[in-house]
């Protein structure tokens, strides 16, 4: 019986890796991707980047134009995340095993979240482009949708993990549904939920840059502008400030996490 399980696992692994290998080879043939050229051009790209892709004094003069755009992107990431978090809480409460009201509502809310989560952010942005055009609204909603889907899932798991046992105890003592939520579920789950919100803000700053290129807003727009006009020094400055901001946000959120947990 035991031996069977191991044999089966070995067989499964063999099949999986053979399939993976086949698919890789097939896609290289179909796309006519030259593996050797692919790797050598990485080197060439690096040489080019060192020669052209760095911020010089002239690029620094663009900083006053770049910073407001950067601010727009950061604020958009934060506010789309907080709104998504607020909307996620009721969905998570319905979807969690501990706090569900009934199974139908639970499945529906998990399904909705799963749709919002699994459609990639770029796809959302493209779809929204039809309705809202190249505007901040498009980027905002795209960030909001994916954050919402992700946070519902994260909150459900946090609640299930942290509050199952105390909820049982409070229910057994006659506490009502809302009392249980506020006295057991939220106090237990809050630190991890905040941690997930911070994580979402981090990822949203990264995604917002990308979405900004599509929608022509925020820091993504600045990058596109300088890149298209072949002002590579200014474009590299944009990349640099984005990297700095992402690191700074990660640093801050790690600090906050340490304090609250």
């Amino acid at each position: 019986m035991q031996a069977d399980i191991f044999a089966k696992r070995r067989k499964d692994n063999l099949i999986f890796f053979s399939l993976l290998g086949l698919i890789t080879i097939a896609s290289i043939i179909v796309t006519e991707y030259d593996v050797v050229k692919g790797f050598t051009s990485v080197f060439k790209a690096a040489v080019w980047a060192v020669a052209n892709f760095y911020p010089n004094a002239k690029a620094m003069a663009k900083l006053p134009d770049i910073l407001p755009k950067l601010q727009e992107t950061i604020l958009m990431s934060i506010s789309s995340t907080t709104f998504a978090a607020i909307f996620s809480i009721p969905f998570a409460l319905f979807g969690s095993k501990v706090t569900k009201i009934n199974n139908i509502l639970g499945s529906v809310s998990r399904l909705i979240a799963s749709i919002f989560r699994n459609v990639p952010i770029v796809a959302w942005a493209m779809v929204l482009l039809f309705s809202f055009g190249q505007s901040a609204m498009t980027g905002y909603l795209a960030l909001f949708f994916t954050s919402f889907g992700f946070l519902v899932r994260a909150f459900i798991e946090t609640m299930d993990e942290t509050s199952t046992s105390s909820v049982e105890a409070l229910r057994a003592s006659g506490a009502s549904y809302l009392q249980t939520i506020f006295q057991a579920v939220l106090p237990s789950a809050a630190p991890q939920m905040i941690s997930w919100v911070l994580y979402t803000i981090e990822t949203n700053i990264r995604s917002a840059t990308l979405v900004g290129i599509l929608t022509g807003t925020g820091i993504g727009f600045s990058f596109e502008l300088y890149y298209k006009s072949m002002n590579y020094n200014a474009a590299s400055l944009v990349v640099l400030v984005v990297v700095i901001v992402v690191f700074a946000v990660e640093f801050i959120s790690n600090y906050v996490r340490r304090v609250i947990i």
Partner: protein
Amino acid sequence: MPLLEIKNLTKKYNADTLALSDVNLTINEGEFVSVIGPSGAGKSTLLRCINRMIEASSGYILFDGVNVSTLSKNELRNLRTKIGMIFQHYNLVDRLSVIENILHGRLGYKNTFEGIFGIYNEEEKKSAFKIIEILGLKEQVYKRCDQLSGGQKQRVGIGRALIQKPRLMLCDEPIASLDPNASKIIMDHLRNISSKMGITCLVNLHQVNVALKYSDRIIGINSSKVVFDGAPSEMTSDIVYSIYGSEAEELDIDIGGRNAS
């Protein structure tokens, strides 16, 4: 005066797991009753059917003359305030303090608003401090529960149940995760609660010796059926064998030890 009457109680989780079959029991006010039996016998299921944390499949339960199974949602809340519950894993809100966890036992008596914001009156706070003193937790009042030892956590669990002013305590393996010293403290407290406060205790136990030492009465359950119901003095090694089956030898039970208290 019977406090609890259980008639033809049957619980089927699904087609092939019968957890309780045709259980009949009468438990009198003030009695200290232990329930023993091998793992999977149905002890936890029995306890949880009484306060309807699990819905029975058939049969009925009278608590103080009231049929538990027909209660409405609000009546059920009301019933649960009169039944305290103690858990093997304490089921506290770990991030809250001892006093907050103990006061949770009052939620069942509160309206939604007071409960959500944790508003307790002077009398409730006074009685919480009195219970804390009885349980020897004075030094820990404002400590977070994740900083307590297992034995201290279980005492908080007892405190939370006591502040409900219950008539019945359901204890599901209260000492299964504790060392012998802490176990003795917890069992002594439970025994006190029954003798001094007149609260009926129904305690699931794994240790036959402990059951013999503390109980007024022992109920033995084996594969969903009550196979023994009598005083500790009626317990013989044959009966232990009939309750535990072949597991009995591993238990190493000293029947003579029952007078050790």
